[in-house]
């Protein structure tokens, strides 16, 4: 049982300046295993700067890790070539945030669908290709004759994003990385796009990594969650447990700030601490914003297992068993 995609102790550091004087750690020591046999929906949650976008870029093979390896079906993705590389491309796809940016303005929107059909040989003839495109478009609630043959600027944002999702349906990858797929879409459309993702996972065996900062939608669609902050895992586990009873101070702050559309669930019970001047390098990355910071926090906390499907990296929970980085995936329910 080879895993579909594996991250082994992957770190990514960006350095700027001629002598690499300034470097930012985008992701630190993350290990994750994505299995093919059990398609699931995993949420990677975090604000900007958390490393979630870097994680997406790494999984898609757009950037290389500074340390660690990314393994696709047993092979390091930087060494893939030829048929293997094409297979990787075919099986790992993405839906991005901006519905407009993914379209090449020179071509009609058909281009987004026809190119992968051609490159991956998904159809035998023009008629077959058109039939598949029609099927995918109808499945997302669009009428093919209303959108095909038009240019991106002639359609609404909602229509464009639906076409993006249709592309994913068309390709039926093994792994779909959805990077904030609904954040630029009207509320009324979000529900149907999320439902399409759920159908992909349930009926077509697609595993989805749903990257977002919006915990409300994450709660609804995902089974498991990883909360990132400045490149490190703060908390991970079953999405129900983590959101309903968060144990890490950062997760608590996040959950507390969720604007629930419910008047009886008010935000703001936890005070927001203004970030202190960085208290030196090293130690817990959340320290300067944490209300419970202690001296101990000068040392990086390990991920501690609180329940069978919940763990938090925080000194407050000292005494619990340490979860080795490689075993992170074991925490996540399927």
């Amino acid at each position, binding site marked *: 049982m080879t895993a579909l995609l594996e991250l082994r102790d992957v770190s990514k550091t960006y350095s700027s300046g001629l002598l690499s004087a300034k470097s930012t750690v985008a992701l630190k020591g993350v290990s994750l295993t994505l299995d093919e046999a059990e398609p699931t929906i995993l949420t990677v949650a975090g604000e900007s700067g958390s490393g979630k976008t870097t994680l997406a870029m790494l999984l898609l093979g757009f950037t290389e890790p500074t340390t660690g390896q990314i393994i696709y079906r047993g092979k390091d993705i930087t060494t893939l070539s030829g048929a293997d590389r*094409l297979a990787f*491309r075919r099986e790992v796809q*993405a839906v991005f945030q901006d519905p407009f*940016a*993914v379209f*090449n303005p020179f071509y009609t929107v058909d281009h987004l669908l026809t*190119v*992968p059909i051609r490159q991956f040989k998904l159809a035998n003839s023009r008629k077959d290709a058109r039939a598949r495109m029609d099927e995918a478009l109808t499945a997302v*609630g669009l009428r093919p004759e209303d959108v095909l043959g*038009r240019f991106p600027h002639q359609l609404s944002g909602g229509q464009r994003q639906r076409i993006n999702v249709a592309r994913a349906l068309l390709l039926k990858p093994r792994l779909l990385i959805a990077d904030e797929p609904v954040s630029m879409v009207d509320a009324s459309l979000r529900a149907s796009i999320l439902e399409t993702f759920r159908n992909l996972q349930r009926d077509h065996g697609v595993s989805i990594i749903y990257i977002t900062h919006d915990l409300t939608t994450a709660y609804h669609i995902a089974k498991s969650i990883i909360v990132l902050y400045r490149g490190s895992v703060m908390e991970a586990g079953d999405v129900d447990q983590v959101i309903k009873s968060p144990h890490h101070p950062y997760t608590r702050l996040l959950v507390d700030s969720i604007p629930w559309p419910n008047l009886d669930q008010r935000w703001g019970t936890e005070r927001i601490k203004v970030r202190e001047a960085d208290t030196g390098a090293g130690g817990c990355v959340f320290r300067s914003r944490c209300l419970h910071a202690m001296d101990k926090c000068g040392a990086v906390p390990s991920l501690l297992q609180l329940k069978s499907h919940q763990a938090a990296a925080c000194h407050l929970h000292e005494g619990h068993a340490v979860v080795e980085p490689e075993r992170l995936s074991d925490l996540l329910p399927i």
Partner: protein
Amino acid sequence: MTDMTAGAIPAPPKPMSRGRRALRYISRNRSLAAGLIVMAVLILFTVSGFFIIDPKDAYPLSAATKQPPSWRYPLGTDFFGRNLYAAMVVGMWQTALIGVIAGGIGTAIGVVLGFTSAYFGGWIDFIIKSVCQILTPIPVLLIQVVVVGSLDKRDVTIFVMAMVIVMLGWMGTTLVVRSQVLTMKERQFVSVAKLSGVSSFGIIFKEIMPNLLPFIAAAFVIQVFTAVFASFYLAVLGLGPLREPLLGNIIWAAQSQGAFFNGWWWWPMEPAIAMILILGSLALINMGLDELANPRVRKAE
């Protein structure tokens, strides 16, 4: 997920074909339209001219000298016996040749180097960019004058002039294309193309290049403009292929014979007007293309 809009809301109209859209755009973009019209008139003049005149008449000793415009010689003749109508026709043609050859080669160099530099990055980019930046401040006019001046008069042909002009003319285009490609390659539709299995070359030619066509067209027009203008001032300085009826040559000859003082006003005026029209139409077309290429400046469509 049924769509309940059938019937109640009429479907949006089918989009226009590319051709019709282009025509509609041109009618809105005044500069482009004006430039193209003037250019069309000049082209018509030159092409129809070739059916009317004998090219030999553009050279000295073909007609009576110093004749003012008349029915026989519509644009008059010069001191050396050139039929100026024939000279204008042939001269415009030659000017166009220099412009297109030098402009075309310069644009081609610029596009290839610009794309290579931007897409592949690394030390290739560093070298190309540095070379451009080092060559740009060099005073082009001086170098051109020195180079052409040091050649044997008999070796100066149309083609040689075009080459001299290209020599220092490609850097601007390279840098512009480079910066455009640099922006484009970060665009998300390029990432999606990669995800769809498109190769690097596929991305350059099928995804990025089509979007740069307005820029490349504008760069070409600028190159042609620069080339035509360079050929003009080099010829006016007496450095051109003197026998050929290049517009600049005619002016140089007229000036050296004191045409205005002697009352042969038509001799230098005609090439001057022609040059104004050529450069003017190119400038208008460039302005029009600028508006097309830069969506923020775009007023029409």
